[in-house]
């Protein structure tokens, strides 16, 4: 973008405006002049300013009042100011909203070099902000593209997959009697893998949908949520783990997404401890020194080597074979994505054959 940054200069005396324009003439900027607060407000309707230079002593509306109004307006609430005052004052109280944004003071008579430096500083800052904004827009667009790509991929993969599973089933229905044992084994391997791929595609679809979902935060009763999940899990896959729930504290989170986090972490803990003689799972939280809440799920199961901990949260990354423990490797990727969306963090500690603890905050 090669648009010159625009600067608003407000002073009730035209000769002062001319003087400031002369000082700033070598800068690559566009000056918009106003001789009153009202004129300045009008100018903000037509222009996007990088900086405003405001005279303080003006009739009708003084510089502080003008700045206060500009801070209230959505379009200008980030606009930095340089106040130009005949007398030095540190009485900031008169400027409502001073705490909301950047500003600076200069006293008359203005020294040219100081004014130029200040203006340059704010212009640079403004340009950096624009750059960051543009980069963010770009990233967001790329992200959206990526998400819709993975969505359509997983969609289009379903059709041939359905054909694969259908034809192998038809083969079984029509020709099973003439197949020998080896033929049957090969056929069942085809079916097993088609089913597995179906699960992968479903998981990928769920994962990509997650990226497009908006957060709806509310106060969540974590205790109730965890109990609910344990009840659900007992119905869907019976286990013999001893589960200890410590008293839980509520969280501010998206209800259904947080449910998924807890569900994945708890079902993992149950799954990976299921081969122990006495599987144990503990669920709880603790407060950090600064009042932050960290939740955890601990098990005494298979664990893993800590050197692999970075692989744990990748999509379809697994540290155990499907023979040892079933799964596609999407669960923790989903957990991490949800927690990142909340602005939180998830991490873990583990030891092979001793167990694992997963921690997260929101």
């Amino acid at each position, binding site marked *: 973008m090669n648009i010159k940054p625009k600067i608003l200069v407000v002073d009730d005396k035209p000769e002062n405006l001319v003087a400031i324009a002369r000082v700033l003439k070598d800068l690559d900027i566009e000056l918009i002049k106003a001789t009153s607060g009202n004129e300045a407000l009008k100018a903000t309707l037509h222009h996007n300013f990088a900086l405003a230079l405001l005279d303080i002593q003006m009739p009708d509306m003084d510089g502080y009042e003008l700045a206060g109004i500009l801070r209230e307006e959505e379009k200008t609430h980030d606009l930095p100011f340089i106040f130009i005052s005949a007398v030095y004052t540190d009485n900031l109280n008169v400027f409502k909203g001073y705490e909301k944004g950047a500003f600076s003071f200069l006293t008359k008579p203005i020294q040219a070099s100081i004014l130029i430096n200040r203006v340059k500083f704010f212009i640079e800052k403004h340009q950096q902000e624009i750059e960051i904004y543009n980069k963010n827009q770009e990233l967001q667009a790329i992200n959206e593209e990526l998400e819709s790509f993975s969505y359509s991929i997983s969609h289009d993969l379903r059709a041939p997959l*359905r*054909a694969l*599973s*259908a034809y192998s*089933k*038809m083969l079984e229905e029509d020709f099973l009697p003439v197949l020998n044992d080896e033929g049957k084994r090969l056929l069942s391997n085809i079916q097993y893998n088609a089913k597995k791929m*179906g699960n992968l595609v*479903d998981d990928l679809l769920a994962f990509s949908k997650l990226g497009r979902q908006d957060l709806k935060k509310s106060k969540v009763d974590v205790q109730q949520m965890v109990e609910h999940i344990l009840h659900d899990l007992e119905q869907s896959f019976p286990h013999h783990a001893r589960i200890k729930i410590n008293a839980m504290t509520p969280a501010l989170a998206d209800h259904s997404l947080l449910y998924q986090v807890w569900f994945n972490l708890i079902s993992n803990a149950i799954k990976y401890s299921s081969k122990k003689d006495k599987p144990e799972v503990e669920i709880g939280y603790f407060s950090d020194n600064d009042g932050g809440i960290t939740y955890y799920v601990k098990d005494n199961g298979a664990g893993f080597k800590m050197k692999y901990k970075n692989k744990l949260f990748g999509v379809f990354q697994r540290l155990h074979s499907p023979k040892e423990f079933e799964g596609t490797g999407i669960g923790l990727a989903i957990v991490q994505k949800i927690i990142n969306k909340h602005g939180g963090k998830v991490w873990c500690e583990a030891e092979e054959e001793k167990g694992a603890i997963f921690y997260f905050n929101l």
Partner: protein
Amino acid sequence: MIEDSESDAEIVLRALKKANITNTVKQLMDGEEALDYFFGNQEGLGQNILLYPKLIFIDLKMPKVNGLEVIKKLKTNEETRLIPVVVLTSSKEHKDIIEAYKLGVNSYVVKSADYERFSKLVVDTASYWLLINHPPEYE
């Protein structure tokens, strides 16, 4: 049946046959063929309402003319708008569902990736529209 995937068409036909639903099935491979069949004059049924089907299964994502365009034609034409139209698609996208309903489809069924479940969906849907539902009669 307006369906561009031969394998999906085969699954549908097989499922109907196995369930002893013996109605004749006319298979059209894409939206263009469907428009020709219903509204063209050269071949197919043209304007002969006696040959209108009792039920239309239609896929959404098809080459040349997609399912939604065909549905729009079928549902705005005075003659064909009475034919029950069932969307049979793998799309669960909200916008597809809304659009199809806005155009006046009679049912929206999502194809299952699982063969057995898919077959059952087809049979259940066909049985409902052919055996349970009472359609208006052309005069």
